[in-house]
């Protein structure tokens, strides 16, 4: 008797799963989705679906476009053109148009967060200066792997980061921190990773500059590798940052003061003709000038965040929240914060004439 009960239980569990049965050939695997807002306030969804009908080498995906009252509605309407239902779990990219990003995009994301079939591991982009649909079409036409593009840019330049929707939502849940999203643009019909968009709450305020994007990633410990130049033309010292670490702490005496401690390891990659790096004194000089450059840039950037951007993307408020400082609850707390930046550059390698290989 007990045997049969156990067998029955197993059957119940097992057959229950049949609900979820779906053949891989019945799925329209979505690679990327772009969402635009039409003039009459409707959502326009543009989706790339991987074309599995051709067994030869990978070719262009199929583009579907539809307009609906909600994101889900417009996405579901695609079924009328596509023989298969959209399958979002393998989606890599979601592109939002500037309109949507600027206008409280929480509700737009809602569908992707709530949908239990989809994942939250895709990358978000803001379409910088073009429609999201055009950007998505362009991704398809160029056969570009935007994931790799983002990866390479983040790894070797640092003007974007690899935060997926999950990471962005995690940041959003924390008090006293504002989010940023990567952006992409079409430049001469080529897709290009562009400057990062910064937000206040769920609404986009504007774009950081290219330089600021890198500094932002430096301050948030997202920077792997980038190029740093101090001085000009013949006096320039070019260095490649190979690792960096930023620690942010509240000053012990002054509660409104935040200290940044930035440690950078760099290799000298090129110098102007007036610069000679031969002895330890000259290395120290080079380090100092690099330090000054970074320090000045970071100070400018912080000043701009405090006074101009009015968006706490670095997370001052979050630091205060953690240290039980209530200042972040006040309106305009950013302008009351004082900052102190301390930069240490350590030159690891200044290069030599002979190479071992």
């Amino acid at each position: 008797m007990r045997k049969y009960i156990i067998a029955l239980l197993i059957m119940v569990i097992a057959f229950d799963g049949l609900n979820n049965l779906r053949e891989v050939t019945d799925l329209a695997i979505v690679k990327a989705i772009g969402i635009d807002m039409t003039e009459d306030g409707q959502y326009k969804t543009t989706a790339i679906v991987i074309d599995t009908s051709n067994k030869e080498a990978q070719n262009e995906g199929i583009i579907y476009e539809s307009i609906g009252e909600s994101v889900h509605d417009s996405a579901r309407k695609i079924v009328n053109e596509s023989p298969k239902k959209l399958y979002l779990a393998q989606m890599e990219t979601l592109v939002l148009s500037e309109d949507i990003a600027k206008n409280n995009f929480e509700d737009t994301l809602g569908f992707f967060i709530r949908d239990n079939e989809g994942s939250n591991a895709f990358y978000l982009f803001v379409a910088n200066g073009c429609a999201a649909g055009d950007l998505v079409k362009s991704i398809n036409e160029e056969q570009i792997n935007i994931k790799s593009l983002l990866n390479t840019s983040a790894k070797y330049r640092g003007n974007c980061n690899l935060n997926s929707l999950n990471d962005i939502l995690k940041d959003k849940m924390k008090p006293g921190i504002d989010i940023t999203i990567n952006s992409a643009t079409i430049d001469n019909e080529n897709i290009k990773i562009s400057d990062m968009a910064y937000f206040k709450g769920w609404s986009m305020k504007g774009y950081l500059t290219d330089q600021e994007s890198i500094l932002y990633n430096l301050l948030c410990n997202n920077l792997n590798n980038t190029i740093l130049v101090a001085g000009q033309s013949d006096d320039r010292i070019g260095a490649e940052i190979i690792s960096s670490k930023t620690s942010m702490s509240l000053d012990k005496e002054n509660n409104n003061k935040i200290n940044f401690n930035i440690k950078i390891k760099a290799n000298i990659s090129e110098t102007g003709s007036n610069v000679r790096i031969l002895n330890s004194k000259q290395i120290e000089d080079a380090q100092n000038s690099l330090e000054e450059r970074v320090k000045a840039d970071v100070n400018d950037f912080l000043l701009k965040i405090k006074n101009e951007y009015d968006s706490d993307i670095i997370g001052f408020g979050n630091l205060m929240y953690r240290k039980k400082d209530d200042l972040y609850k006040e309106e305009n707390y950013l302008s009351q914060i004082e900052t102190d930046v301390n930069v240490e550059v350590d030159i690891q390698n200044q290069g030599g004439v002979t190479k071992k290989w």
Partner: protein
Amino acid sequence: MKNLLEYVKSRSKDLDDIFIRRLCVDNNEINLVYNEALVDSTMISNFVVRSIVECIREEKILNDIEEKDNSLEDKLNKKLGNKKDINLEDTIAINKIKKIDPQQENIFYYIMSGFVLIIYKDIAYVVETRGTLTRGISEPTSENSIRGAKDSFVENIMKNIGLIRNRIKTENLAYKEKRLGRKSKTKVGIMYISDIAKKDLVKYVEEKIDKIDIDGILDVNYIQEFIEEKNDSDFPISINTQRPDVVSYYLLQGRIVILVDNSPYALVLPAFFEDFINNIDDLYQKSKNVTFTKIIRYISLILTILTPALYLSLITFDQESIPSELLTAFATQREGVPFPAFVEAIIMIFSFEILRESDMRSNKVSGNTLSIVGALILGDAAVSAGIVSPIMIIVVAITTISGLNFSDINVINVLRKWRAIFMLFASLCGIIGIGIATILFIASLVSTVSYTKPFTYPVSPLNFTEMRKNLFTRLSISKDKKRQKILTNNLTKSR
């Protein structure tokens, strides 16, 4: 029994292969009864008949040296009639001769074993003149030996014992013989090393064997099924092997070996799960490098059970668990295949099992045709025709190749069965189904008892010393100084 010869004749009415040779000497006669099929007839001519004839001739020459005119035969007859009984036991030039009492012993057992029955004045002697009905020792066919000994058991139990005794020359290697089978009277031998093997296990096995009552025993598996009667598990709890070196290795561990006449396989018990994964050849290679080999074997064990199930669950339920490029590849390959993935998998797995089964059963001549047809039809034509996807071929190939790591037919059957169970559960509820099937598999594995010993030893019950010795790594033989506690009470094996 008044007249033994009459008795023999009456009983062998239907036995045309029984031959009775009559040596007539005066009033007395000597009758030789033997089975033509089983004896070596040159041996009978050279050592039995000639011995008797020469003995008589010698005595005749000594006694009647002056009688020259009569023919030799007359003289013989005359002489034999007058003189007292000759003692056959001293006369015949064959080592194994025995006087038997027909009342007590079954003379036909001897005749059917290749003995010659000599009836002289109602006294019966049996002389062993067995012909060689067995083949010579050759290489093992079902187990491959890379650099170990190349000999293997044959159908003759005495040769098999010889092969083992050749390796273990101690008087402590006990051999207990029993004759089982009402009709077949097959020799069944139990071997163990008396100062290593556990007494209670030996007793247990002997008792089980004593209880066997059956018409005939044709293979060692007959014994196996009798002594394993309580084994409900799918897993084999004793090892079948063809190799004397494997048997010797297990004997030295304290295991018990059962040999059956006419079966070229020995039965070793108890067996643990790791024994079917480990190979004796590991002992003949450098111990450090064996680790990798062993890990490969465990991986292939998992692969051969799991691959089709995993594939099914990934493409029918859990598409989000794989990288999108892989999913795209799967989807592209599956495009246009008319069957659901489960049916496709079943078709391919079954065709491969059929191919494998017919490859095993068919003779070697048609085997080549079979493999060509199989490779062409299953590998290529089925894909071009769009009946199955190429990825399914890869899945089946991985499954089959991994399965080839295991040579024991019982293990292969278990793996087949569990592969099907895993596939069924995977097709019902994906990865969760594989989880359920894994629970069932592990439950089945750990509930197996091999002759009072836990089958999954040394993993459960946990024994780190033993795991280090033989599970994933192999301890150097020079450092392995203790026997396994589970198999013997006599632990120290070297200093």
